């Protein structure tokens, strides 16, 4: 994998409604480096600045101060092409199905590629490819997007961004309002995009458990600042701090820590059920075996 930095943020600040009673500092000196091909989870509760942050990454919002570099170029330079940036950094908003507008699913997915200046045929090709990759049955392509189920609509909306072939894919709470099955479908789809196409993916979520099993790196936002940044295991090690700001580590993290406190030797870095099971079985069967080996006098 290439180890180049696709996006660098340098002390980015954003202030909403400056100089009014409603002034809010949504981002506070945010500095980040996003490597090519990384799969990152951005976690924070409502109002932590995570949605504001991602809208800066494709230039939809402008920082009040600070710099953002895309492949080494300052996106606030006068000769920087913001439209080109938006082509290369795809952003899927929250409840993206609310932006569907065309009469057929196919036409809607073509909207992005057409805006990129592609020919009709080329745009169509891109749309086909994108719709196939989100796993929508082909017989639905020429139907109205408004007749689909919630989960299907959302997949169409994501296809609309994928068809633009972005290098970086950002998704703002792509599973909000979906049921568990719909949520897993979307997360699996995103993970596949990362795996198969080597896309850089940023996944915004407020659920640690959802992202823990997918991402390589977690950025925790709190009050407009980066509070923690590291691998899931590094981040969850701070489970007490996370809880203090209203975010919870996965249930098993707490479980393993509590078991250690009670004197059982288990792996506190386990974040998924599988890892926890393996560590527990090892610790418990080890204990049982050890107990068997100890010769207790007078008992046999």
């Amino acid at each position, binding site marked *: 994998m290439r180890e180049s930095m696709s996006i660098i943020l340098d002390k980015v600040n954003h202030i909403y409604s400056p100089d009014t009673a409603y002034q809010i500092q949504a981002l506070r000196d945010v500095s980040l480096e996003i490597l090519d091909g990384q799969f990152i989870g951005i976690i924070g509760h409502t109002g932590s600045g995570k949605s504001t942050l991602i809208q800066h990454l494709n230039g939809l919002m402008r920082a009040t101060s600070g710099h953002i570099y895309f492949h080494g170029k300052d996106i606030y330079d006068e000769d920087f092409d913001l439209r080109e940036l*938006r082509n290369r950094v795809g952003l899927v908003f929250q409840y993206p199905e609310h932006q569907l507008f065309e009469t057929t699913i196919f036409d809607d997915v073509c909207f992005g590629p057409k805006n990129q200046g592609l020919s009709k045929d080329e745009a169509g090709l891109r749309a086909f490819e994108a719709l196939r990759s989100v796993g929508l049955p082909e017989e639905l392509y020429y139907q109205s997007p408004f007749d689909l189920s919630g989960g299907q609509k959302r997949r169409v909306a994501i296809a609309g961004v994928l068809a633009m072939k972005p290098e970086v894919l950002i998704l703002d709470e792509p599973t909000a309002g979906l049921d568990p099955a719909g949520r897993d479908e979307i997360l699996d789809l995103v993970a596949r995009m990362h795996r198969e196409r080597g896309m850089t993916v940023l996944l915004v979520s407020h659920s640690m458990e959802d992202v823990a099993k997918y991402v390589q790196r977690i950025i925790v936002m709190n009050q407009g600042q980066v509070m923690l940044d590291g691998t899931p295991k590094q981040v969850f090690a701070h489970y007490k701090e996370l809880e203090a700001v209203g975010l919870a580590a996965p249930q098993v993290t707490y479980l393993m820590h509590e078991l250690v406190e009670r004197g059982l030797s288990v792996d506190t870095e386990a974040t998924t059920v599988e890892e926890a099971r393996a560590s527990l079985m090892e610790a418990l069967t080890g204990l049982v075996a050890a107990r068997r080996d100890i010769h207790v006098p007078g008992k046999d």
Partner: protein
Amino acid sequence: MLRDITLGQYYPADSIVHKLDPRVKLFGTMIYIVSLFVMRGVVALGVATLFLFCVIRVSKVPFRFMVRGLKAIMVLLLITAVFNLFLTPGEPLVSVWKISVTEEGLTNAVMMAIRLTFLILGTSIMTLTTTPNQLTDGMEKALMPLSKVGVPVHAIAMMMSIALRFIPILIEETDKIMKAQMARGADFESGNLLRRVKNMIPLLVPLFISAFRRADDLAMAMEARCYQGGRGRTKMKPLRYAGRDGAAYLLLLGYLAVVIACRILLPWPQ
């Protein structure tokens, strides 16, 4: 950008204007609008200006909130002023080719701009100091006599109050959809008028769909809370005139009288 529209946004504060009966504010706004069109001459203009700024001051709403509402109608304001400036017949001041600016035109343009600005400011005071529900109550009560001749006063009032509540929500939604389409490469800014209108489709279709969905949801929520129109309904905040309302009416009528007096008694244009 779209967040700047203040019309229809309540600004909570503890002022005597906030406490006035909404009917007073409704009639007051009407009286003020009438006065703007009756007024002639510098003295009347001075009185209208003074009155407006006193009320703004007393309302405790920061001035910049009022001004923000003006930005939205800037274009309308300019168009009106330009039309008046060039199309009023009279003694030409400056003439370039077939277009000429007349003295009357200049006066008209300035007066029209002032009138419109004051009209928006005056109406903004009402909407900024009255909750939509109070406003609706005020209108409902003031217009109640019309229900005897079959006008669905309650329904209209309810519709208006809901429209006002959802304006900020829909504005936010517009902003969101706009950004989402911009992320897909949509362009809302360049091109000629026709092109721009066409470019609005990806914004308007989702907006309409969302508005209908909200309307549907809201209707169900209202029904679930036993809403059945105006029949048998009581009021949490029934309208009762207090002493200050009478005083306010006197003040308003006094003001109107002064403006009319200026028109009749003082010679104009001055």
